């Protein structure tokens, strides 16, 4: 399977235990720093039109600032109401101090 790794930003710029929004090849992507690992999902909530990078990362779940829906940042799974739809998550790798995301 071919991978389409896109350079997103420097690994040091991903905040620990927090979230940052980045533009990756024209797409609005949220990157999460957790225990030295980085995870990526779409940045726009599947419920209201809010940016998850304005939300709060806790116990591996990102809480949307607008209606407090929570997604598991590793799988993108919607964890509670009012969410009815999972969010898309993407593979991430760190190489030479850079974060690469595969948008598929």
């Amino acid at each position: 399977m071919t991978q389409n790794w896109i350079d997103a930003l420097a690994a040091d710029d991903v905040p620990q235990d927090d979230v940052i929004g980045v533009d990756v090849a024209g797409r609005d992507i949220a990157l999460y720093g957790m225990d030295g690992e980085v995870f990526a999902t779409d940045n726009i909530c599947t419920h209201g039109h809010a940016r998850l990078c304005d939300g709060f990362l806790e116990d591996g779940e990102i809480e949307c600032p607008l209606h407090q829906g929570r997604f598991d940042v590793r799988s993108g799974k919607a964890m509670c109401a009012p969410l009815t739809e999972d969010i898309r998550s993407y593979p991430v790798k760190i190489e030479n101090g850079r974060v690469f995301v595969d948008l598929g």
Partner: protein
Amino acid sequence: MGDIPAIFPVAPAWEAEGTSRIPFWAYTDEALYKRELERFFYKGHWCYVGLEAEIPNHGDFKRTVVGERSVIMTRAEDGSIHVLENVCAHRGMQFCRERHGNKKDLVCAYHQWSYSLKGDLQGVPFRRGVKQDGKINGGMPKDFKPEDHSLNKLKVSTRGGVVFASFDHEVPSLEAYLGPTILQYFDRLFNGRKLTILGYNRQRIPGNWKLMQENIKDPYHPGLLHTWFITYGLWRADNKSELKMDEHFRHAAMISTRSNAQVKNEVTAGVSSFKESMEIQDKRLLDIVPEPWWGGPTAVMMTVFPSVIFQQQVNSVSTRHIQPDGHGSFDFVWTHFGFEDDTPEMTQRRLIQANLFGPAGFVSADDGEVIELSQNGFEQKPYHRALAEMGGREIENTDHMVTESLIRGMYDYWRKVMGV
């Protein structure tokens, strides 16, 4: 001068014995009306909100009212039915504007507070503040608990596909509220078959809401007011009939049986509007196709105090929801329905017979008009009183229609609850 009473009584008192003379101010006094809302619509009573068939699917909702208070009837994911007050827990906005619809959740447009279909607060935008330059600005206080800020949830009871709600969570069971006599007729109509919605009529009637209850508790008028009935020999004072009340006299059932033979006799002979020679082209408007569930009666009109009338007039079945709006006005919402096992011919027949009813109905148009004109009479001389002495001054169940007993019964209950 001493002979002329005050036109607008300062301290109105119910002077007559019993309830056969009803003071006009019972229909015109705004403070009294507020007390009626309080005591009949918001406490101790069940109010009709709709039919389960109006919200068949998860996420379906219907906006309606209990008294004057806007409520939303919803169906949640687990199939359960909820009735929620249409007032946002945040800034009090009446947020739901659509009459019917389907939604995943209920959202107030003002600040997008969102609630589940069961009324629980789900989301408060920026509850935890807004991140800016590594700092968090604003947000709700740490001790803010969403579970303390649900929508106001009403107590709900359903029976036979009919949904009732009450703001009063201490209200007795719906079955106890209706009482065994009325329950028997309720279960006759709503006997467990799934209902289908055929359509709605809506009208605003500029009269006091009680007049609608009285109209259906008054079998004295139909043969006299509704000339349309008489023209075709449909209503006759000698139809086999019964009037029955619950033990509090607040609810009633008017039960009558019409024979298919429309015979001219001494009862119709004197009524000038009876036209032997006139015929209706579409016989389905008038003829009777007996249904097995009737068990005899061809018409049963149930008045369930304070908010609803359940109608079976031959093959036309409907609910009529009384929605008060000030002392001198109410909205009247008719929901025409059928049953899932109806043949297409029966559905057509129910729809055709529904032409007798509603704001422009061949029969019901008359009722809206006399209610308006009654209210006009009351407003011009509130010191006066109406008479309800047909059939005597007592309150009793009868086996005939020539009585105003049910109106007297309703005011007996009204006086007790109102402390008038």
